[in-house]
């Protein structure tokens, strides 16, 4: 069963083809990596998948449902969550508030019940809090629920982003360079966390530059260069693909 299908996806910015007729599919429950040199169109691809950028042409379908032209919040509701390369959090909120507000699309208590503080409101509020703590525990931040998000150390902010993504109850999680700027130890922990997410039944697509991470955890790799897909395959296939080696290292003289 394919969770995500991208067909003929193209995005032009003026004369620049950021993504050029890209096709790929992601299997449910798998970990897939998208790699490529800087400027290959990886982040633009994520932006198209989450509704931040409208593609010029092409079709994105999620569970056999076309999501190409849907609004960002509708795509999230269907079950696509993401993190950013340059961390994006609600910086002035506390750690737990960040996770709680991310459960927004899965909760319903309205204004009226909040004002009269009905029992269903209090129950839901309590449930949201408990669930938020569970997500924090999963990423290892349960000790700092009341810290202001922007004062967390870098690595913890990256993990908070993942907890936020999880709180929207996604089926597909897009991770944009989850290990960027991390030391080997932190990278190892992040790989463990990604595996754990897969264990929860989530499908994961990551953009990554660290080849140890890419080769270590992905089942399938898509290689982009100048917006075009130049290769796709398992880690061992990609490792010895001459096109990929050329894109990364240049032509041999």
């Amino acid at each position, binding site marked *: 069963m394919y969770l995500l299908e991208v067909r003929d996806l193209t995005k032009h910015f003026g004369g620049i083809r950021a993504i050029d007729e890209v096709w790929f599919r992601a299997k449910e429950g798998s970990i897939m990596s998208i790699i490529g040199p800087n400027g290959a169109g990886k982040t633009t691809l994520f932006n198209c998948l*989450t*509704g*931040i950028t409208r593609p010029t042409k092409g079709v994105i379908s999620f569970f056999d449902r076309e999501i190409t032209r849907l*609004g*960002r*919040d509708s795509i*999230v*509701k269907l079950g696509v*969550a*993401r993190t950013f390369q340059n961390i*994006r*959090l*609600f*910086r*002035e*909120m506390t750690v737990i*508030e960040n996770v*709680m*507000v*991310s459960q*927004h*699309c*899965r*909760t*319903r*208590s*309205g*204004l009226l019940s*909040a*004002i009269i503080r009905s029992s269903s409101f209090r129950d839901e509020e309590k449930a949201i809090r408990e669930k938020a703590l569970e997500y924090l525990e999963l990423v290892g931040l349960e000790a700092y629920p009341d810290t202001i998000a922007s004062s967390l150390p870098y690595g913890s902010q990256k993990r908070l982003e993942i907890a*936020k993504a999880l*709180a*929207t109850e996604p089926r597909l999680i897009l991770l944009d360079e989850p290990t960027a700027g991390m030391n080997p130890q932190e990278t190892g922990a992040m790989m463990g966390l990604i595996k754990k997410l897969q264990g929860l039944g989530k499908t994961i697509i990551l953009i990554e530059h660290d080849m140890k991470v890419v080769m270590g955890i992905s089942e399938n790799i898509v290689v982009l260069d100048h917006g075009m897909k130049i290769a796709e395959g398992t880690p061992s296939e990609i490792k010895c693909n001459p096109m990929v080696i050329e894109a990364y290292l240049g032509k041999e003289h």
Partner: protein
Amino acid sequence: MFIQQLINGLTLGGVYALIALGYTMVYGILELINFAHGEIYMLGAYLGIIFLAFFTTVGLTAYSLPLAMILTFVLSVIFCSAYGFTIEKIAYKPLRNAPRLSPLISAIGVSIFLQNYVMLTQGATDKIFPNLFEKAGIEFIGARVTYTQIFIIAASAVLMLSLNLFITKTRMGKAMRAVAQDKVMASLVGINIDTVISATFIIGSALAAVAGLMVAIYYGLVNYSIGYIAGIKAFTAAVLGGIGSIPGAMFGGVLLGLVESFSAAYISSEYKDAYAFIILIIILFIKPSGLFGKSQEEKV
């Protein structure tokens, strides 16, 4: 004298704070200075007169004054919220991705339109708000406090506390703070930005409606142009407190009311309207982002 001016200042300050909240909430979310907001306050006052006149005609006021007043407040709030909601949909939403100056000009246009609309339909002369509550009041440490003043101070305080509770505790309040901090991120956790913006306009307009109606009761006179000066003052209050900050608008409003009332009493009432702006200039010299505002680095 001191206590008297304190009470007068708090009354005025409560009203400024309620209007300032509308400015600051919209700015926090859209980075738009909603110049039409003062007109909503003016509409609140006019609608109050209209509904009260209606209830008097049908005999409800004679039957039960409190009931008639409550209904007047509720209806004015509902109508003003509808005005605020509609203004956003017609005048600001289509310009959401336009350069920042365009919605600002649109806001000024809406303001001029509403003033003239009320002038044409209600006349250019002052309307009198029926004096239902004689100048009854209590003596308080040598000062005279009318029941209307007590009501205004209490109502402003209750509304501000409820707003604070709403923003910090409820799901929609949290969504508003999220949208104010990062719109894209907020939509990526499933928050519908349009709903949040509409809610912001509805709440801001409701507060302005209450402020307008209370001022109509307090001064007894209403004119189509009252929204202009009140709007500018409340905007000053919001900037004073740090625009975008909710506690800032509350504090700025009350501070402005106190400054006006004390300076009118102790310095001179000739320049009553100027003191507000003098304070604004001084504070912006010392702390350009306002009292509660955060200094922001320019986004590249």
